[in-house]
């Protein structure tokens, strides 16, 4: 008699993915394989131009692979149509280095906006906004405009916006690129908290120290391929 461990579903699965940007002579990704299970928190590291951002873009269907396959939450999205792309992006939210906040709207309105356009009822919206702002530690800044916030606070608003949508996967492309160390730590701690509630997190980052501190599974991308895989020991 043998015991079987229940198999975890893949949240993100890239197999033999090739991608060359238009006009580029060399491929950005070359037969890349990558697998992230549901509920994992994985970091992609590597120097600039190694292909980290391209992987994030492929996972959110902002770019398409030239060859190979990309599956998200068990669905092949390699050649995805507009309708399925829309459905995918309701479950997979991307956070960028540039925050992508609406400058003429308050913190509360920024977080509420994506719920409003998705037809979430007013009461439910208020509840989710309050929860998300509480989680990122910004309830007192709810009426401030993005221009009145520090870079770290703005990034926390963009995380709050993602949290309010309750996605299955959060993709983050250099989310701490514009932040100092202290604010960077705050953002990664937020991701850890989200991951502990079951959200899969894939972060592309330069910040190896942060990755080491949190003991994340790390995939180092070099010249379009996963070169090394390591799980750091948490520093605390």
């Amino acid at each position, binding site marked *: 008699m043998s015991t079987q461990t229940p198999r975890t579903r893949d949240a993100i699965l890239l197999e033999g993915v090739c991608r060359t940007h238009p006009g580029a002579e060399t491929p950005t990704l070359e037969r890349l394989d990558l697998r992230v299970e549901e509920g994992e928190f994985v970091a992609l590291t590597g120097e600039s131009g190694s292909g980290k951002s391209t992987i994030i873009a492929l996972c959110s269907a902002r770019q398409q692979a030239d060859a190979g396959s990309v599956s998200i939450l068990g669905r092949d999205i390699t050649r995805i149509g507009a309708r399925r792309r829309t*459905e*995918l992006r*309701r479950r997979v939210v*991307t956070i960028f280095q540039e925050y*992508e906040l*609406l400058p003429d709207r308050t913190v509360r309105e920024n977080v509420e906006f*994506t719920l*409003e*356009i998705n037809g979430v009822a007013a009461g439910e919206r208020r509840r989710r906004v309050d929860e998300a702002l509480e989680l990122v530690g910004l309830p007192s800044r709810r009426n401030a405009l993005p221009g009145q916030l520090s870079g770290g606070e703005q990034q926390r608003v963009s995380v709050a916006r993602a949290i309010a949508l309750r996605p299955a996967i959060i993709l983050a492309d250099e989310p701490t690129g514009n932040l100092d160390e202290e604010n960077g730590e705050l953002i990664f701690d937020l991701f850890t908290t989200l991951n502990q509630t079951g959200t899969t997190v894939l972060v592309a980052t330069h910040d190896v120290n942060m990755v080491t501190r949190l003991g994340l599974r790390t995939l180092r991308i070099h010249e379009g391929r996963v070169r090394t895989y390591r799980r750091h020991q948490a520093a605390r």
Partner: protein
Amino acid sequence: MRGLRRIWWILRTTLRNLWSGRVSAAVAVGSIALALVLTTVSLLLGTQTERLRDHWAGRADITVYLCTRASISGNCRSTTTDRQIRALEPVIAAQPEVEVYWFENRDEAWKAFTERFDGSSILANLDANALPESYRIKLADGADRSAVVESLTTELASVGGFDIVQDQRETLSGFFSITEKFRIGTLVLAALQASISVALLAHLLRSSVAKRRKDIRVMGLVGTPRRQIRAPFVLEALSVYSLGVVAAAAAVVGGLNLLRQLLERAGGSGALVVGTEAAVERMLLVYLVGLVVGWGTVRLTLRSRLRETN
């Protein structure tokens, strides 16, 4: 419920877009209204010309007016007698280019006159005796009217009893050539104005998209359907066009009414002006064509401006 809330969001966003670009929207509404008015007017001018031609000339190309006591031409010595009326008829009938002719007596002439000038003060100063009897002649297509007038004038002179042979079309041709030139000029202006309106509508949409570029990007990132992203802009264009249509319709109907009133005040007949029903028919046609042109403008503009939402 989610669908209804999305529709509500689309409507609010449309209103917000219109309000934030209210100056551009007002200019576009004015321009569209002007283009629609000019196009409608150029079509109505054609109808109006035909109406006036029929009104003044009746169905006849040539009229042989008979003598009354008031006739002053050298052809008339007294009122045309019944014998002369009978004698004139075979001369007219013998003309090879005459398709049809009929005699219009004083009562018939008065009836036609009162219909044409219904409501006019001119009727108060006249009666049936003031109007001449006449032979009305319709020529075959392609007939040389001036040759027939000349031939009839010569041949009828031997019978006598007629005042003048008048080419109805020639009498009015000077006036109608002016209205035709005016109509073509209006049509050219309408085409120019329509081009300006298309450019203004496209500019209005481009500005709205530019103002909401960040919103659009965020919407694309969180899976908002493309239809929902586009809807406020489409509705914005539709609202501007509809306001233009309302303004144009009010201007055309109001303008026609004003023209009728001015004519009647001047002693003419308001019935001379093209009817509201005919105006509405032309307006509907023009507005439908405008809608198709506007729709094409919206599609092309949004296709190029919202590409990044893919």
